[in-house]
């Protein structure tokens, strides 16, 4: 009898989701889907709110990357005011964006993925978590927690709190940087750099340890999208959109984020609350693209910090004749290169006298009825688009979130892993964990992507060809 396997909820990611795998009468995987089953509807209930409130409101979408929503919302506000913000404000916004990358990337590697890597995909699931990791390597775990803490400290110094700070506003930021805090933050840098390098070294051993598993982790060609600086450098706050194909060819470049509608559409499926963005010229679902660290490292021409640039060159060499690094497992590698970049760039910004300026906010009336903000959140490109009336009251808004943009690729990854590991016989916990780990490569934030809140345990179902439940696993 054919059957469907469901993993629900998926664990060690942000939000609620399940995976279903349909197996045919011969025991072969016929379909696999990653379902996101939470919904909160920020886009609807923000209608009628003042544009000025949007940073504070949308940052509540998520407890992991609220700063990305705050910054992107402020940028949409800048656009509505039709102003350029002061240099100090932009540099401070850049600083907090990098702090957000640091804390989020540290959480993803040390806290969420390292239990699989260091304890093994087949290790006891009761111990395959941060406490099991402590038992395995206390110093490594402690370093990871402290690195995340450093990112949080920067956010707190700038925004007065670690999460949900309302510090960035349309026109700039609310408070200047306190000069007395500069040395305190700079003192963290040597330890942070050492930890980022330790993480990279550890990951390289992991690449060897799992060399037989890695080829199955979402290894396929797709498009890659992200922002790059005017000179092609890795970008995180501003820039123009670049789209590369899986062979390394740049097929769109210097797209103004204001024009993203022309290039990208959002499809919906009845079985998931998470939308499926795609590149319009190729249609749905052929227009699948990936965003986030893997995409950013593929599309940029260089990184403007020395240590991260040296690692980027090694990363790019892995593409070989393929032209681009297409294996989703290497999201982890790209993420750690960005972590190192964040440490280097934060040090540069902290030593930049411009961050100590007191001209931090430009003021203006509502000058446009529509504004778009785009930035690179830890998980990929984030768009906030607002339509306001002359009083700045939201008439409509659209939020395009990084995780949603990876939705097609996450589904493809689940399918590939299921095809590789499931043959219709008994399905081990280690196999389920590999399928979850495939999703964790993308470090999805389902709270953000569905504009919902929650966390994500695992639920896996097996159903037959008529969708009858055959078996079910929850944890």
């Amino acid at each position: 009898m054919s059957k469907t396997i469901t993993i629900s909820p998926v664990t060690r990611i942000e939000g609620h989701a399940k995976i279903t795998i349909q197996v045919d009468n011969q025991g072969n995987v016929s379909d696999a889907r990653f379902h996101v089953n939470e919904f909160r509807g920020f886009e609807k209930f923000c209608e009628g709110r003042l544009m000025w409130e949007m940073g504070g409101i949308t940052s509540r979408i998520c407890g992991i990357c609220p700063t990305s929503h705050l910054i992107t919302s402020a940028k949409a506000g800048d656009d509505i005011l039709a102003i350029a913000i002061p240099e100090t404000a932009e540099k401070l916004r850049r600083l907090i964006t990098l702090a957000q990358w640091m804390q989020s990337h540290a959480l993803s590697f040390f806290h969420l993925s390292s239990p699989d890597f260091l304890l093994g995909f087949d290790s006891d699931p009761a111990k395959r978590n941060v406490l099991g990791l402590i038992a395995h390597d206390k110093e490594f775990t402690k370093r990871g927690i402290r690195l995340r803490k450093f990112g949080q400290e920067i956010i707190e110094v700038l925004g007065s709190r670690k999460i949900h700070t309302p510090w960035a506003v349309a026109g700039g930021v609310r408070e200047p940087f306190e000069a007395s805090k500069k040395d305190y933050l700079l003192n963290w840098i040597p330890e942070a750099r050492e930890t980022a390098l330790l993480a990279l070294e550890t990951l390289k051993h992991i690449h060897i340890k799992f060399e037989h598993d890695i080829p199955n982790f979402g290894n396929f060609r797709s498009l890659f999208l992200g922002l790059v600086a005017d000179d092609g450098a890795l970008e995180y706050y501003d820039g123009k959109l670049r789209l590369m194909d899986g062979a390394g060819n740049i097929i769109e470049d210097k797209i103004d984020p204001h024009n993203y509608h022309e290039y990208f559409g959002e499809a919906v499926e009845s079985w998931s609350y998470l939308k499926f963005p795609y590149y319009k010229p190729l249609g749905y679902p052929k227009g699948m693209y990936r965003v986030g660290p893997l995409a950013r490292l593929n599309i940029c021409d260089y990184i403007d910090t020395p240590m991260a640039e040296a690692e980027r060159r090694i990363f790019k060499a892995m593409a070989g004749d393929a032209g681009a690094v297409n294996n989703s497992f290497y999201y982890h590698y790209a993420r750690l290169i960005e972590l190192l970049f964040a440490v280097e760039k934060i040090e540069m910004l902290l030593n930049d006298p411009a961050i100590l300026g007191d001209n931090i906010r430009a003021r203006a009336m509502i000058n446009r009825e529509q504004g778009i903000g785009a930035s690179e959140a830890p998980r990929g490109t984030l768009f906030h688009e607002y339509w306001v009336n002359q009083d700045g009251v939201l008439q409509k808004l659209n939020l395009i979130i990084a995780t949603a943009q990876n939705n097609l690729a996450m589904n493809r990854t689940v399918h590939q892993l299921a095809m590789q590991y499931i043959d219709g016989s008994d399905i081990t916990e280690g196999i389920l964990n590999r399928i979850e780990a495939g999703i964790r490569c993308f470090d999805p934030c389902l709270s953000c992507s569905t504009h919902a809140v929650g966390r994500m345990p695992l639920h896996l179902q097996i159903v037959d060809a008529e969708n009858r439940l055959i078996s079910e696993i929850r944890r």
Partner: protein
Amino acid sequence: MNHTLLIGYGNTLRGDDGAGICAAERASGRFPGVDILTVHELQPELAETMSRYADVIFLDAAVEGSGIRVVTLEPAADSRPDGSHAHSPATLLSLCHSLYGRVPGRSLLIAIPGRTFEFGENLSPFTEEMVEQAIEEIGHSIRS
């Protein structure tokens, strides 16, 4: 070794869920030698801070109950953490012990009952009253 750390936590946008933070903020300056932290959720890096204190008192809203409840906390025995980034007080104590080799000498949770947890930044009248009682309880709970 620092004396006592008071940690108020909760979501101030969900009505009475902000009771812990409200109580911590109102307690500020009223108890000498007590450091106060307010956070949205309990994150793993708090363990390091907690390990430096003789005593820790958590202040949180409770969904049920008609009065203030004081619970003595022990490190969680279960090795499974609560989630990816937000932890319970007991799990944080467990992290304290595992990572830093010590836990505060005494850890308490003061649970403040709530009545409404819908969207909104105000406490219900009932929970307003409970917050005042919670502050009195903090006074009783601090060791000299």
